[in-house]
Every structure is written in structure tokens, then in C-alpha cells.
């Protein structure tokens, strides 16, 4: 049994008076593929944003790869993390957003090479070689010199995946990466993610409303409701035999809304 690569311990997160996460604990094994499902507003995105340090926490501890994410060793114990510590921690984590967030003023190739060159001191040549390999992998070898505005949504999202992969993170976070796409473009993005899941040992956390995909992709499914993990288990358990009533209700609604399981 290896050490967990992510260990969240009694995390709470408040926005003003609103409590979004409430004493949440979660451990993720290296290489594990997690699907986070649950109703809107249940805190799924917030979990990913916390791991990416886009959001701070109101209480608790997060450990990534054996080190505290928001704290660092200081005089007489742990002190809040400074910028340098956050940069150090971010090298292990990559994120793909619902709305792609590509850099619109940079070509596809530059989108992918920018961070490796700036943050890892990779030479432009090496960065471009790797970027072209990644573009090949996501099926966009011919788009290297295109601008993001010339791409379809599905293509943009595949570039965004390549951009995150270029930094070789140990952990990848995917936040509803297909929900801003036209239905006919969803599959091309899911295919890329299937390949990633099959061919790499990256740890992956996926927030999704695509239950069929979650079922095939995940080793473990977490059902969120109101800032808590209500139920978790293997995909078959959660999707075929949910124990909690709230999970059952949620899945019934999703199926009624036309999503396949």
C-alpha cells in the first residue's frame, strides 16, 4: 500500500457566511482515477480549485505528495505557505478548465511551450519538440501554428490538455471539461482522456456530469452533496447499487435528464 498522493484532512471552505465544504476528508492513491459527481453547488469545483491553489482553505490541512499545500515548516511548526512554496507545490499539479482558458494572443504551440520555457528553464527547441509530441497525441499535430480563435471548442480543450501535460504534473484536475462543448465535439475530448487514463500513471481527478464516462474512467466515484462526500465506491457500486438515498435521487434525476449511465 503506497502513501496517498493527496491527503485532505477536515477541509472547510467558507465564502463569507456560506459554508461550501464542511470538514471534508479525502485520500487519493498515486495513479488513482477519481470521478467527482454530485448536484450543482455541492463543492466539486471548489475541491479542484483548492488543490490547484486557486482558492485558499478556511480550515484543515491538505497534503500533496508528502508536503503540506497551504502550510510549510517554519519556526515551531507549520506556518502559512509563501509564494515560493506555492510555486514549488504547483509543479506537481495541472488543471484543465471548463472554458479552456487558452492564452488567446498566443499560437497553439506557444500556449503549450510558454510555461515549460518560463518555469522549468526548458530550451525553446526542447519545449517545441515536446509540445509537438503532445499535439500529436491529442490529434492536433497540424494546428501548431493556429491561433486559439481558429479552433473549435473540442480542439481548444485538447490544446488545453496538452498545455497542462507539457509540465508533466503528477496530478491532473479536470473540471467539467466537456460541458461547454457542442455535443458532437464531446467524444473527441473524452477519447483523449481515455488514452491518458490508459497510458499514463498520472493521478487524475475528474468532475463531470457525463456519468457513462465517469463509470468507464474512474477507479473510484465520489458523490458530493452540500460540501460533503455522501457516498463513495467503485463505479459499479455507485452507479448500479447506490446505498444512500441522496445518491439514488441524484442518479435518477440525471438519467431522467437524458444522461446515459
Amino acid at each position, binding site marked *: 500500500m503506497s502513501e496517498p498522493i493527496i491527503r485532505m484532512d477536515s477541509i472547510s471552505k467558507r465564502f463569507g457566511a456560506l459554508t461550501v465544504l464542511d470538514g471534508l476528508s479525502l485520500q487519493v492513491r498515486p495513479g488513482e482515477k477519481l470521478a467527482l459527481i454530485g448536484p450543482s453547488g455541492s463543492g466539486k469545483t471548489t475541491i479542484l480549485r483548492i488543490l490547484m491553489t486557486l482558492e485558499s482553505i478556511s480550515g484543515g490541512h491538505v497534503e500533496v505528495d508528502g508536503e503540506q499545500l497551504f502550510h510549510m515548516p517554519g519556526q515551531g511548526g507549520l506556518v502559512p505557505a509563501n*509564494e515560493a512554496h506555492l510555486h514549488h507545490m*504547483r509543479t506537481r499539479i495541472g488543471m484543465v*478548465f471548463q472554458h479552456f*482558458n487558452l*492564452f*488567446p*494572443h498566443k499560437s497553439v504551440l506557444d500556449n503549450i511551450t*510558454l510555461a515549460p520555457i518560463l*518555469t522549468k528553464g526548458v530550451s525553446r527547441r526542447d519545449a517545441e519538440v515536446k509540445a509537438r509530441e503532445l499535439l500529436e497525441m491529442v490529434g492536433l499535430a497540424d494546428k501548431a501554428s493556429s491561433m486559439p480563435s481558429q479552433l473549435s471548442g473540442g480542439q481548444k480543450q485538447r490544446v488545453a490538455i496538452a*498545455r497542462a501535460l507539457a509540465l508533466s504534473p503528477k496530478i491532473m484536475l479536470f473540471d467539467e471539461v466537456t460541458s461547454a462543448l457542442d455535443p458532437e465535439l464531446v467524444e473527441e475530448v473524452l477519447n483523449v482522456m481515455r488514452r491518458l487514463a490508459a497510458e499514463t500513471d498520472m493521478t487524475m481527478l475528474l468532475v463531470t456530469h457525463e456519468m457513462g464516462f465517469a463509470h468507464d474512467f474512474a477507479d473510484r466515484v465520489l458523490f458530493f452533496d452540500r460540501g460533503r462526500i455522501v457516498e463513495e465506491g467503485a463505479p459499479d457500486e455507485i452507479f448500479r447499487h447506490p446505498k444512500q438515498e441522496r445518491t439514488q435521487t441524484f442518479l435518477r434525476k440525471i438519467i431522467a435528464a437524458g444522461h446515459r449511465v
Partner: protein
Amino acid sequence: MEWDWTFVRDIMPLLLDGLRLTLVATVLGAALAAVVGLVFAVLRRSPIKAVSLSTAAVVEFIRGTPLLVQLYFIFFVLPDVGISLPAMTCGVIGLGLHYGTYAAEVYRGGIDNVAKGQWEAAKAVNLTKRQTWVHVILPQAIPPMIPALANYLVAMFKETPLLSAITVLELMNQAKSIANSNYRYIEPMTLVGVFFLIMSLISVAFLRVLENRFKERT
């Protein structure tokens, strides 16, 4: 009264000297405004409420009072508290401060217009704050600012005659003193108008080029 070309030739050196001072005031004023604007814009974004609010108040105050009053204040009132500066310096400071507040608003709008997701994407690929500004935010924020900044530059240029009120011998002041000592207004004043028109047209054309250059790069 007839147009007198000989008179034009005689007064041209003095007028050109005035034009030189006008251009110097414009260029230095614009440079100062660009920097002051940046400082105001950054301070207004400060997470410390006291800093952002007092900056907003200062900016509002400067924008809400006439440039002429500010120039008088800098040139005639500051010496009373022991700060005497050359007229030209006072003029540049006045222009820079006044137009700096306009520049600050333009900067702020341009920066706010960059999508929030861009900051987050930059963080997710682990760029530093500085790298985020230089490689992600400013290249997107600046091109849309250029037309507005250009307008203020031309507006400032056309307001430089106000400096004559604090004894700077810029173009307008030169023309006025020539006219007063020769009792002829038509040539100096016409030439002032022509000079301003030519310079405005040149700077507008130049800024169009700049604007297009930026557009191509994005």
C-alpha cells in the same frame, strides 16, 4: 490686413522655438502620465482598503478640478511652502498628474477586461506574478487601450497652451508675445493653428500605425 510673408519668415525661429517647448512638454508630460497612471492603477488594485480608497479619492480630486487651477497651484502656491520649481517642470508635473489620472482609468479598464480565467490559467501553469503580467495579462490588456490613450495624448497636446499661464514660453505664449510687440495677430495665430493641426495629424497617424502593429501581433 494682408498676409505678410516677410513677417512670417522673421517670426518663424521664435515660433519654432515655442513649438519645441510645446513638444518637450507634451512628451515629458505623457511619459510622466504613463508612469503616474500605472502607479495609480496599481494602488487602486491594492487589497488594502485604505490604500485603494485613498488613491481613488486623490484620482477623483485631480480629475474633478481644472488643469489650469492645478498649474497655478504648483507654480504659485507651492513656493509658499518652500517648493519652487522651474516653470517648465511645474507644467510637466501638472500635465503628468492630470493626464495620469485619465491613463489610470484606461489601464484599469484594460486590465479588468482581461478574463478572470486568464489569471487562473497562468496560475495553473505555475507562472510567477511577474510572468503572468508580462506574458499573459499586459499583452491582452494593452492593445485595446491604445485608441483611448492616443486620444488623451492628442487632448493633452492641445492643452499645452495652458502652460503659458505659468510663463512657459511654449508655442502659444511665443505667438502671443510676438503678436503683442508687433501689433500683428494674423500670422502668428494662424501659424499656431497650423502647427497644432499638423502635429495632431501626425500623432494620430503614428498611433494608428502602432495600433495596427499591436493588432497584428495578437
